[in-house]
């Protein structure tokens, strides 16, 4: 299974997208399907300091795509869609309350702008991913001690390869600089690779990118399982209570967005469901005797 964990949503606020932006989004998904990706995550980037969050309909992706009914053709071909929110944090005291996002988005990530925000994200918050802006140089030094705290909690760190492919040479330089800093401070652990591109020309096959990163000194062999773990961790947040009991068998591959009531199941969907039916029949026969 291949997954792209970040396809940016065209706008950064709650306005309705235009027809051209929708077609651009669709084109990117078609290219990803051609490159044999099966799990696609649409990423909504928001700055809490500037934009007010409404009380209901917090998730604009599900609202405007009508629970992914507009992407029905892809779902029929076996592609799974997820939603993700990226919160830009500058002051650590304003990013404390994330509880309203847990029930509305699948994956929750944070983009820290200052060192204090990074320490907060690694230490206290219950999130899946920490990401950085690779078009500019990271304005602070990444310490192994803070990053190591995040690794212990199981938070993954994201590498976005789209700025590597840009025509601007300064952006390329910044990407390589930031990438080497992240690899050094995390000691090649808990890293994931995603695209984060706003253009369908900047999407690449996964092995191509991995080859290039290996030339730069990247050694993680667990990178494919890491992506799977992020999806598992985020889906279990909604479909289980603290990972003790879950609904259904395979939380990643059954996509039911934001279910509020449990679903009825057919016996054919359950693995070896006949056994349970035979058991119930035995109980009924005993009752008759």
């Amino acid at each position, binding site marked *: 299974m291949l997954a792209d964990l970040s396809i940016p949503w065209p706008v950064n606020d709650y306005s309705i997208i235009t027809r051209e932006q929708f077609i651009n989004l669709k084109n990117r998904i078609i290219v990803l399907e051609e490159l044999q990706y099966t799990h696609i995550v649409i990423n909504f980037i928001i700055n809490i300091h500037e934009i007010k969050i409404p009380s209901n309909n917090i998730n604009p992706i599900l609202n405007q795509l009508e629970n992914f009914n507009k992407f029905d053709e892809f779902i029929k071909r076996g592609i799974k869609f997820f939603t993700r929110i990226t919160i830009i944090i500058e002051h650590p005291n304003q990013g404390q309350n994330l509880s309203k996002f847990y029930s509305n988005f699948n994956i929750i990530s944070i983009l820290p702008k200052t060192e204090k925000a990074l320490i907060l994200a690694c230490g206290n918050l219950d999130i899946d991913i920490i990401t950085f802006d690779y078009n500019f140089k990271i304005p602070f030094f990444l310490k192994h001690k803070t990053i190591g705290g995040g690794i212990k909690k199981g938070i993954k760190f994201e590498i976005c390869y789209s700025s590597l492919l840009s025509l601007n040479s300064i952006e390329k330089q910044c990407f390589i600089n930031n990438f080497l800093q992240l690899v050094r401070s995390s000691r090649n652990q808990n890293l994931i690779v995603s695209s984060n591109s706003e253009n369908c020309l900047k999407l690449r096959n996964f092995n191509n990118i991995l080859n290039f990163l290996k030339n730069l000194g990247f050694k993680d062999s667990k990178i494919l399982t890491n992506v799977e773990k992020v999806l598992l961790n985020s889906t279990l947040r909604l479909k289980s209570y603290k990972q003790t009991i879950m609904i259904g068998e395979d939380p990643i591959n059954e996509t039911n967005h934001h279910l509020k009531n449990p679903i009825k199941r057919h016996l054919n969907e359950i693995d070896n469901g006949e056994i349970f039916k035979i058991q119930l029949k035995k109980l009924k026969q*005993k009752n008759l005797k």
Partner: protein
Amino acid sequence: MDKKYPLEASLLSRSYPSKEKIIQLLETRYALNDNPTLSLKPIEIEEIENSNKSLLTNLREEKFKYKKELKKDESKSVFKKFIKNHQRLQKKLKLKIQHYKKSNNLSQVSETLFKEYKELLKFDDFLTMNKLWISYIKDLLCILNDGNLPNIQQCLIKLSSAEFNGCFLRVLKSKNKELIGKNGIVIYDSQKFFIIVEQTNKLKLIEKKGTYFTFVIPIYDYENENIDDNDNNYLEFNIIGSRFQYRSHDRSGKKFKSKSADDL
């Protein structure tokens, strides 16, 4: 009365040997006024038998009385012995059947011929336990037979502190590949194992770590309606064994913490 005023009761026990007399005295004194008062009068002295022990030692002995009773309680060790004995019998029966087959050149031998069979647990005896469990879990989750379903998050919170003795389980995934597909009724839910009885009358210990257990709840009234028509009306849940390693009475009051899913 004796428990309500422990100090007065222990003071009076110096002069009266029988408990009933003390209770009677206390009742008459506090019949009208509930405030703790104690007026002492000179009385005729009755004989007291165990006067050697002081007041403090008596109190101390009563305090640690339960520890002596705990040592007498051997139910856990008896249970352990029973399971070990049962597993030994199972092995013995298996060997006997093999031996019998070789010596008599038979292809199939029924287990009922041997004397060990009578001592083994039978699957049919536990069917009533399973029936009770289904009615219990339906009451707990507020599932009525009219088709309305409860809220999903409350369901999961209740299930995480529910009782699983008597549940019919099946192993979905496991690190140990021989366990996959084993099914049976749970007779004991220990800290690291589920002890189940299989349909072939065998006792089996299944480790929780690294395994997923499936169970199914019927939404319709299975005792009266036809089972074949209701293939669509089931709820399916999965127990993640690695996060479930608590004894059942510890689990009921526990607050679970969120962890990363790296080891699942």
